[in-house]
């Protein structure tokens, strides 16, 4: 089984979010970038398929040279090879089209992407690559088993979960549950050394077209201070929620 794990290079959750160039660009100054958490769960599940079922695992990112440390980290965790499509990611559809080309060229059986990236939160790339490559698709995937060309997956739905059967080629939008947080791996020194020898292939993009354009960013208005209510005066809290916030 050939697995491709899509890796988004995203600001760490604790990053300060600021914008430059008249609020049109994300300010990367002083920002620590990491593997998108939803992708990391998928990468770790892919490592299980590699170790238990002999799968080969490549990782891919659409981005400039600055994203290579994130791909190297994925190699250090255990991926066999990395591919970087050399263009700055703009909208989800454009990224999905580049990934679809990589998938077709590499004949991957299983593509694992995160349900959404924690920067733009679009949640559209996994579904779009499934549509573009005509593969089966399971979103919000919290469990995945593959036996030959058959797959069993569990999808989180609103208010519960759903167990499905499908076949390869398959794309999943993964999240926590594929593996647990305690299963995530920190690269060890041997992994980091080996990652330096592993191939990181740079692919030039193939005809970039975008469907959407970010015009401007805006930060939410600063929040007012919390209104404290005494635990002995909860009538006041009920009153505030009813008359001021109008939520009950």
């Amino acid at each position, binding site marked *: 089984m050939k697995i491709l794990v899509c890796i988004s290079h995203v600001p760490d959750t604790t990053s300060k979010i600021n914008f430059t160039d008249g609020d049109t660009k994300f300010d990367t100054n002083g920002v620590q970038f990491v593997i998108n958490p939803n992708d990391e769960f998928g990468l770790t599940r892919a490592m299980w398929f590699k170790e238990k079922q002999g799968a080969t695992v490549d990782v891919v990112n659409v981005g400039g040279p600055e994203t290579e440390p994130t791909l190297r980290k994925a190699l250090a965790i255990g991926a066999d090879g990395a591919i970087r499509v050399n263009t700055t990611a703009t909208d989800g559809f454009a990224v999905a089209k580049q990934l679809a080309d990589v998938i077709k060229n590499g004949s991957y059986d299983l593509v694992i992407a995160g349900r959404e990236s*924690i920067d733009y939160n679009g949640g559209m790339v996994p579904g779009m690559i499934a549509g573009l490559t005509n593969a089966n698709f399971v979103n919000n995937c919290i469990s995945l088993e593959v036996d030959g060309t058959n797959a*069993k997956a569990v999808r989180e739905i609103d208010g519960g979960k759903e167990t499905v059967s499908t076949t390869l080629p398959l794309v999943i939008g993964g999240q926590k549950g594929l593996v647990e947080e305690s299963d995530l791996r920190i690269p060890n020194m041997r992994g980091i050394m080996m990652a330096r020898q592993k191939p990181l292939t740079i692919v030039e993009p193939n005809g970039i077209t975008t469907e959407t*354009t970010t015009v401007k*960013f*805006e*930060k939410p208005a600063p929040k007012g201070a919390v209104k404290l209510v005494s635990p002995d005066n909860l009538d006041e809290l009920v009153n505030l929620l009813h008359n001021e916030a109008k*939520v*009950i």
Partner: protein
Amino acid sequence: MSVLVYTESEKGNFKKIALEVASYAKAVANQMGTTVTAITINANDTSELGKYGVDKVLKVNNPSLDTFNAKTYADVIKQAAEKEGTKVVVVSSSADSKYLAPLLAVGLHAGYASNVVEAPTSASPFTVKRTAFTNKAFNFTTIDTDVKIVGVSNNSFGLVENSGSASAEDFSPSVLDNGVHVDSIDKATNTVSIADAEIVVSAGRGLKGPENWGMVEELASVLGAATACSKPVSDLGWRPHSEHVGQTGKPVAANLYIAIGISGAIQHLAGINASKVKVVINTDPEAPFFKAADYGVVGDAFEVVPKLIEKLKEFKAQNA
């Protein structure tokens, strides 16, 4: 040319978010000087949609569509969009709609903007305001394609009643054979789901153990709310994973979010920040959640919550 809205139903009845996206579609139609067509799949009575601005309903009734399937449903909506010559398709942010929307975007060669929180700020160029960076910023995006898909963030637009009425016509699209077969669905039927809830009551490690969740459930029941929990609580197995809200759990965009005994780690706040009003109950006045909340009670949850339940019961009795 009409705006097409996918109005989701469950067991034949419309979900609240269906009425919200219908209201949103009406706002878009007004901006563009056109009408609203809704597509329903195995819904019973569609007349309710007229109240929320829908002019025409395309009713699909087909037993092979009883179970949701993203690819098949996306294809049905695509056929409706093509029949209507639609330029804008509006969907919700339910798990199902977020699942099908990217497939629909590929099918219609449409640009798709998700997590949209307001009516378009401009109809031409078609510009929407979306959340980004896990609710730490907004992103104004133009959708540049001929056909556009807007995914509306739950509870962001609200319900807007209109005086119109909706005509209905049967629509019989072809149904694709799909490659993903549902074997079983495990869903709580008697509780409110986090995604559908207007109010969410959430509790953390401050509750000391799973045996103390009775009061959380009672508070939720008084408010008609969904119950949720912090990550440590689901990691400890005190509550099911499906209740975990936060960055790696379920996102919450409720009108009211009540956090009990949750300190407010940044990963937790990232997941719940889209909620409009936040109330925190915590013994520690230094808990970071107080900085993110609108209302706070510094006190012991075991004293505050039972008292709050009593006060809310009195309030509900008076306002029933």
